[in-house]
């Protein structure tokens, strides 16, 4: 199980951190920390109420296709109701978003490589305004794996 928090903040500041580390001489790396980077596909969701108000700090549980019982990622949405995760296998990923006794589960089909299946749509019933609130596949360039993914068990 993997934990993510504060995604909107991490996304912007992380790239700066990676660039800084890359410019340091080897001897300046304290305690033998090694940071590697890769480009990966990630899925971003945004959860809102009917009113359009973001589900701020909502509880998020992400279930991988091969285990619908145990959360693979857990965390919280940011202040815009957003949450990002990087699927590492193809199949249907299920995302539960909950707050104050109300919640929803969505299923996102992911293809090999982490991209969202082109056939996927999930905007049934959305108003035009709500349709502007959506989630997408995002590619984060040079994202440091060690920083971007907190591998701690929860």
């Amino acid at each position: 199980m993997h934990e993510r928090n504060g995604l909107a903040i991490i996304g912007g500041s992380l790239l700066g951190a990676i660039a800084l580390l890359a410019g340091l001489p080897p001897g300046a790396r304290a305690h033998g920390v090694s940071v590697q980077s890769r480009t990966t596909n990630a899925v971003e969701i945004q959860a809102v109420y009917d009113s359009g108000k973001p589900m701020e700090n909502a509880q998020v549980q992400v279930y991988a296709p091969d285990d619908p019982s145990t959360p693979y990622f857990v965390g919280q949405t940011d202040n815009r109701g957003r949450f990002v995760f990087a699927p590492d296998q193809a199949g249907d990923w299920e995302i539960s978003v909950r707050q104050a006794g109300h919640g929803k589960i969505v299923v996102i089909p992911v293809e090999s490589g982490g991209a969202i299946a082109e056939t996927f749509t999930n905007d049934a019933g959305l108003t035009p305004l709500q349709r502007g609130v959506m989630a997408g596949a995002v590619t984060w360039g040079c994202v440091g794996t060690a920083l971007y993914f907190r591998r701690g068990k929860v």
Partner: protein
Amino acid sequence: MRSLSQVALCASLPLWLLACGAPTAEAPTEDTASEPAAEVAEADGDMGELEIRANGEDFVREGFVTKDGWEISFDHVYVTLDEVTAYQSEPAFDAEAGGMPEASVMVNTESPITVDLAAGDESADPVLVETLSAPAGRYNALSWKMVPAMAGDAEGYPIVMVGQAMKDGETIAFTLKLDPELVFVCGDFVGDERKGILDAGGKADLEATFHFDHLFGDAGAPPDDDINTGALGFDPLAAIAQNGVLDVDSAALSEQLSAEDYNLLLSILPSLGHVGEGHCSETQLTRS
């Protein structure tokens, strides 16, 4: 009622360049929840036990304070469920998109069952409605009808609430007998744990959850929270009690409440049914 509207998604590179496509929800089909039990589908493969449970949550088992300050405790909350149907839906069913689950496998109860949601203490498990023998698989949708009880204390009514309301030294013993028939169609259970994942030879459960805070509001939530702004509260009911007693059915409520309050009551009932924290679609009262 506070409601998570949608979590929608589309592919974009970079962000937000591509809008989502057309809705995927199927047009409403026949009301499967109202089909006779004889049409329960049987699937090949190993079987397991699927428990159907009903849960009034802590609001019912422990009591609560309404949005207008009445301390409510329930002796009984009877609900009568019929044609409780569990589906292996593919694709996953989105209640807010409407329609019915598309399922190749479904199992259901065969006769109305009345349960008391207030049974047990605060640590009690949700009430067992029935255990069904079911093909293994993912049961990710649930529907049920609420019909008049055939016998017992709730006879003639789908919902009967019996309890006391206390405020500022005043106590009202209430019995609310509500008769609108309701049909709830819901997707996957949303909660701390997943439900409905049935292995061959194993046991799993599904839960019909009832949010009575939608009716009375919750003093524990801010006054401007949707759970309170959309709730009836207890003041309108206290106002029609006589000598500390309120024993009314829907007809009496229609006569004695203001039209505004009675219509509000009717408008809240379709939001009672949930699957954990997941919302359902009510297809009977809202259609009439």
